[in-house]
């Protein structure tokens, strides 16, 4: 999928001369040549015909804070930050010509593009933070919900209460940091736990997991400013990837339950699935997965210990990227 943004980004990658104008006067310095590329604006002059050109300023356009054009007097006021971060102001008088008009236009366009790109970068960073946090909270929440089921099999209501309390906090965090509000479902789960009716609790846990899974499938993050980003195949984590984190978390956390119950058939069924999810996630997230990436020729096989190692790496990676201490 190609977008205007992609083309523009590609165009900015190589430095390319956009406009050049001679007989430009830099106030308090004298006449010289003003060059504009897609990356910088530069003024140079010569003291004599055979003397070498001297660069008075060469400013990276990303450092330009202000470029004000007076079309009546063909004056350009440039303000930028020097390497020490101090503001520097230069006033340039351009000869009246079409070339000067072209330079003004090009400068305006390129600065606008840079501003857009900077905004986009910022949005991308925010969006990534949002995705990592969502992914981490989903990972934790799925783990806690499955843990509740494990504790139900031991009728350990004290442990269920403790896990539920953590799950409620994580669900709150998911609503605040992420894009998913499942507080109503968690509330009904709490009511079920208070009733100490284990089958009812299991049904509520399943309903909560279904809501998370469906939400990850059907809904894109609601924030308007991220709508465009969420549709792009941008580098980094994608909304789509959280689905695999969800599936991996669910299957992985259930493994210990099946082990506890001696359900070997379910373990055998889960391991190749976990290997597939892991290979997808390893493509996106630095997991140092020992499961490896399964090729089409290879049947995904794994051992529980390597799944555990992959899960631990995934959890660490999610935690780190989500900025959770």
């Amino acid at each position, binding site marked *: 999928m190609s977008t205007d943004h992609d083309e523009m980004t590609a165009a900015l990658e190589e430095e390319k001369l956009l406009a050049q104008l001679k007989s430009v006067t830099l106030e308090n310095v004298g006449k010289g040549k003003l060059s504009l590329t897609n990356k910088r604006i530069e003024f140079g002059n010569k003291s004599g015909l055979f003397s070498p050109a001297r660069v008075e300023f060469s400013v990276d356009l990303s450092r330009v804070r202000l470029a004000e054009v007076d079309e009546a007097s063909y004056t350009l006021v440039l303000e930028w930050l020097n390497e020490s971060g101090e503001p520097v102001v230069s006033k340039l008088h351009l000869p009246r010509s079409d070339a000067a008009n072209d330079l003004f236009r090009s400068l305006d366009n390129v600065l606008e593009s840079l501003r857009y790109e900077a905004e986009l970068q910022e949005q991308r960073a925010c969006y990534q933070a949002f995705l990592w946090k969502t992914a981490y909270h989903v990972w934790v929440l799925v783990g806690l919900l499955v843990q509740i089921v494990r504790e139900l099999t031991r009728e350990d*209501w004290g442990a269920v209460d403790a896990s539920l309390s953590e799950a409620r906090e994580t669900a709150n965090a998911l609503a605040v940091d992420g894009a998913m509000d499942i507080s109503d479902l968690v509330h009904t789960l709490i009511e079920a736990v208070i009733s100490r009716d284990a*089958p009812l609790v299991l049904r509520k846990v399943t309903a909560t997991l*279904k809501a998370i899974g469906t939400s990850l499938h059907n809904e894109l993050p609601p924030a308007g400013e991220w709508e465009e980003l969420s549709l792009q195949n941008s580098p980094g984590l994608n909304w789509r990837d959280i689905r695999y984190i969800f599936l991996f978390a669910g299957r992985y956390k259930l493994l210990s339950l099946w082990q506890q119950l001696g359900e070997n058939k379910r373990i055998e069924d889960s391991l190749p699935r976990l290997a597939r999810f892991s290979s997808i996630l390893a493509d*996106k997230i630095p997991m140092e997965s020992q499961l490896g990436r399964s*090729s089409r020729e290879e049947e995904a096989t794994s051992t529980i210990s390597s799944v555990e190692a992959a899960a631990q790496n995934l959890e660490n990676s999610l935690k780190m990227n989500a900025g959770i201490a």
Partner: protein
Amino acid sequence: MISRGSENKVISCPNNHQNPEGSAWCGICGLPIIDYDMELELLLRTLAEGEQHIRFAKENVFLGIGDQGCKLVHDFYRSWGKSLKSSEFLLIESSGESQQFADLRTELPSNQEYTSPSLSLHLLPMSVSRQVGYYGLGERLASNDPTLDDRLLRSGIRASTKKQTIFLLSALGGGTGSGASPYTLQRANALNPHCRSLVIAMMPAAHEPDSAHFNAFCSLSRFIKADQGPLADMILLVDHDRLMKVRGVGSMGEEIARESLLSYMVGMLVGAIGDRNSSQVDPGYLAKMSRSMGIHAFVPCMAVGRSMEIFGGLANILESALSSPLAQVDKESIMLSHLLVQVPERLAASLQAETINAELNKWNKDNFPRLKGSVLQLSHSSSRADRIDLCLLLGGTRLAIIAKRAKEGFERFKAIAKGKAWEQEFGVTSEGVPEAQEAINWYDTMLDELAS
């Protein structure tokens, strides 16, 4: 992640590359292609199938309340209860008097350990006083415990369990046993309106002070008449002094007496002693029938380990049981008789249900002129001896007779308990005393009406 175009169906890989539907791997990036909907569905179904591992319907819940009640349940748990399926054991004691269970607590499963059936201890929190002593205080203690409901729920007493029998064992002379027991049963009934209940109530010994008899009488009044009728389906009243005198013989020839006899009786009630596969024992049915007939107070009569060769027949063993009832009984007033019989396998052929029923009916007719109903529940034991165990539960006698000593103690003590200071200190209101009397009178009058 399947997209359906106008003609060809495609499926997206995790990197959003489109592949023909049915592809297992992406032709571009090589990543596996996952059908998310299907995987989600499978995951949820797998989880939901775990329900078979979390169905802990407790058919029998044993509650021991107060010092003696806890000891009785603990004894039963150790003797017979451990092997009972679908059962839970909960001991409820006031925290100030819990020191006696220090050794017991060491046997309780830790939070991490899962044992089935499980035995646990719940301490009713005490704020100031470290002695309960009186009925009113025990009731106050239980009703002020905000965690009691949850503890009962955790023991499996909940409305989702349709077939459930609660066995509440308690000595009614003490404060916790007499006061907390009716309140606890009331909460259990509220948490599971479907449950059936049998209270095994130990009445105080003759030498105990009037306050103990007062406690027992008040407690009994609560069991027999609450806001919506009797709290307990069946109350098996056991006089402490009579219990001390009755003796039975176990399958190995050992003596069964005192508290062990009560433990044995509970074992017979739930079919814990005989062969469970052939047992017809259903305490819930006995409770249901008793409530339906409006007869709630019963006197147990035990004959344990009676040799058929020596006694010569079932009627003589029934006579033996009737000769030593565990509380005072008036034969003329008996309207309902439940008989639990445990027959060794070797006598099973000669003592089949029909034979026993015929003999029982004849014996009943000879002994109980006002009998309106009789239930026989037969079970078999693997014992090689010819010894028969028999537990007769006789209902219809007025409480004024069964609990005569408690009533007398109550009469003597009530003048003290009516005082204002008593209400503040010991939690029995001035209205509570006549109410207790009225409740017992109400039940006895109801029996009189039923008999006529």
